[in-house]
């Protein structure tokens, strides 16, 4: 389905994740963060950029991997994105919900 976020029409799935990463920009990210009650800071963006890089490299994401990434530890990851951080951060980053599980 289509949704207008920050003035741009983007494709999203039923859970609100962007389905085409190419449509993402920082304004959209900021808007999606607001919906999750998060005010983005430079630290937030560092984590989002890391997630996007991993996504582009086709590396599956998990809480464990992020804890070992050297970018952020799990404790801080939770402080930045308090509720279901990996899912919330993935949504803000415009990448698919992590398939950490089957």
């Amino acid at each position, binding site marked *: 389905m289509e949704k207008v976020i920050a003035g741009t029409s983007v494709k999203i799935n039923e859970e609100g994740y962007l389905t085409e990463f190419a449509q993402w920009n920082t304004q959209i990210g900021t808007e999606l963060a607001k919906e999750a009650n998060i005010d983005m800071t430079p630290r937030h963006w560092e984590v989002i950029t890391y997630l996007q890089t991993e996504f582009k490299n086709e590396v599956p994401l998990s*809480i*464990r991997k992020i804890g070992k990434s050297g970018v952020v530890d799990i*404790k801080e990851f*939770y402080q930045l994105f*308090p509720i279901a951080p990996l899912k919330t951060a993935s949504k803000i980053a415009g990448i698919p919900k992590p398939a950490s*599980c*089957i």
Partner: protein
Amino acid sequence: MKRMLILGAGTAGTMMANHLHKELNSKEWEIDVIDEQETHYYQPGYLFLPFDIYEPEDIVKPIKDFIPRGVNLIQDQIDRIVPEEQYVAMTNGDRLHYDLLIIATGAKIAPEETEGMLGAEWKKSIFDFYTFEGALDLRNKLRTWEGGNLVVHITEMPIKCPVAPLEFAFLADSYFKNKHMRDKVNITFVTPLSGAFTKPKATTTLQHLLDEKQIHIESDFAIEQIDNEQKTIIDYGGRSIPFDLLVTVPTNKGDDLIARSGLGDDLNFVPTDKGTLQSKAWPNIFVLGDATNIAASKAGSVAHFEAEILTENIKRYIAGEPLNAEFDGHANCFVETGNGKALLIDFNYTHEPVEGTFPLPGIGPLRLLKESRFNHMGKLAFRWIYWNMLLKGTHIPFVSTNMQEAGKEFA
């Protein structure tokens, strides 16, 4: 003479030994299977052992009974694989050269990964049921437990048989009802996932069952530590859940020998092509079952479907033909729901479990994603199928290797 080495004689390795023994020319190929254990465990039975539904002897048999004559079983410890030089180093110093290697070393629990899991309460009020010993210890605990907060908990994904923790919660509900003490027990199901299961339609059905059985769910819970004194589990966000009895599924990891060989990811699972089952690092190494990193369930049914495809691919590899990227992630799992009922799910990489009939489209007799007594009988009958057909690599009648779309109600 060339040598095919199979590492691990669990469900996947045993099936491969049986398939390849039939398919490979014994004048050209020697087949060896290595496993340090002597006992083959029927792992689905671990779910039933704690509730006194199965006895220990129902689920153990000697490994050697299932290895065909003509295949050598080496019961000794592996140190590591040396792929550059195509040999397996044994702890006793032996070097076993191979031409083709199959890794089927499985997955196991790693409770040491979670702070406090192996603390003072381990085996007192903290139990696992993913090992034979764990399931048995839990049975003894449950026999005398007087009630309180039962917390059924998944540490992190991926785990073997992802539906087993839910089944445990359902069976616990039945067990305490039968003991006339359900009113003394609160059951909480704690998961790192956003809901009861990983796929939306099955999650809806399973959530309904949780509600019906008054099992409370705590989702998106990523455990940081267990406080043994307070008897609580605490997640990274600071959420804490008290328990009197914690039944946890610890982190699952591949075998340590994979790490020693430098062949694994951060959880010791081997990077594997999801269609051909060839290892990504070495063309003459193939991987199946729980040992792979592919996004399919870690379950015996998956290993069964993989074994059929891998056998074809190994024949092709030997003949110098291109491999078939055929494996579709097919899984087929009975889900025990308590009170002598079960439901059945059938799915693959791209199709989530939906309602329908199985294995014969429109006929059944098994119903997909619906509770029935017949499904439960199917689950119990499966133990016989496992020992007598599955391990021997016999094709199960009507059950296709790739998932069938007929007979299913896709929206």
